């Protein structure tokens, strides 16, 4: 059987036939050149068409960044009890985390402490009732921020930058004094409670 197929194998193009077809193909190749494809870098938009993964990643990144920054921006004006307030808190944490050096950290925490007082004032102006739980949260946060300010100012002083520390302390205290109304509001609940308690006792004795 191998001998039978060996005979078949001898069926080849002869040199002349092979050369003729080769020459025809050469002409055909020259007449039909490879279509030159422009580099995608000539048109930056083409890269999105050619590389789907790149396009998806880029669009997702743009979406995430725009949605995140948009949300954070919207959250900046949110008040305690509102849906976006937790994002505002998260953003503040990120700011204090990314601040480098005792001075920057003290300033960030001072600003955030003042933010709490401003929020209370805005709630009062907008006549948004502040329940005891919210008040306590604000007070705790204000206390934490103030403590952080103090710690970083001490750090600054210890490193010999007393003047810078004093300036931040002065500005911080001035800002707090500008928001006395908020402090009164925060303490109002407790004052009212004690007043109520006192009045109640008075009524009983009367």
């Amino acid at each position, binding site marked *: 059987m191998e*001998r*039978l*197929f060996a005979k078949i194998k001898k*069926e080849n*193009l002869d040199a002349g036939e*092979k050369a003729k077809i080769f020459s025809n*193909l050469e002409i055909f*190749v020259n007449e039909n050149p*490879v279509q030159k494809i422009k580099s995608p870098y000539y048109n930056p938009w083409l890269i999105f068409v050619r590389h789907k993964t790149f396009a998806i990643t880029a669009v997702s990144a743009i979406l995430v960044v725009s949605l995140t920054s948009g949300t954070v921006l919207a959250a900046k004006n949110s008040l305690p009890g509102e849906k976006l307030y937790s994002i505002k808190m998260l953003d503040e944490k990120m700011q204090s985390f990314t601040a480098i050096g005792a001075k920057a950290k003290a300033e960030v925490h001072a600003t955030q402490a003042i933010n709490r007082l401003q929020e209370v004032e805005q709630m009062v102006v907008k006549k948004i009732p502040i329940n005891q739980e919210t008040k306590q949260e604000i007070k705790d946060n204000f206390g934490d921020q103030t403590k952080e300010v103090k710690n970083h100012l001490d750090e600054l002083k210890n490193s010999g930058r007393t003047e810078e520390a004093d300036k931040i302390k002065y500005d911080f205290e001035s800002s707090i004094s500008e928001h006395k109304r908020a402090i009164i509001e925060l303490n109002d609940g407790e004052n009212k409670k004690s007043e109520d308690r006192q009045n109640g006792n008075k009524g009983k004795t009367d």
Partner: protein
Amino acid sequence: METFEKTFLNSYDLYSNEIFRFVIFKLSDREKAKDILQDVFMRTWVYMTKNGKIDNMRAFLYKAAGNAVIDEYRRQDRRDNKLDSLETMAEDGYDPGFDDTDSLIEKLDGEKAMKLVNELPEIYAEVLFLRFSENKDISEIAEITGRPNNTVSVQLNRGIKQLKIIMNKYKDKL
């Protein structure tokens, strides 16, 4: 000359004879086989200019040649009226006077050997040709024909058995 074009023309140099044999084996017409061979390579070049480099050029050429042969069958409305079967050859007075299969093979030229193998059903003829004439292994035949390895093995065994029967038959007839 560009590398791309060089690759293509080198492929012609490398594979033209085996693709030519594949086509002539199926058509039994040398002139037609040359036309189809040229057409297959031209179509391959057009494909390359649009889609880029071909990973397995040999398998691609076999597939293209197979399709071109099928087109030719349709044009000729054939496989029923096989061109020059060995019976026709006998009727035409071709009488080498064989007394066994060895001497039968001895007396056949390449073209007639192809006709003998082509007496088999086409699926068997094709795998036998690829296995014994082109020395392809089972997996290569499977890739070229688009059939599973097991199917190719079975077709190969059946083809060998049937070819032996045909050879014995013609040994007595011619």
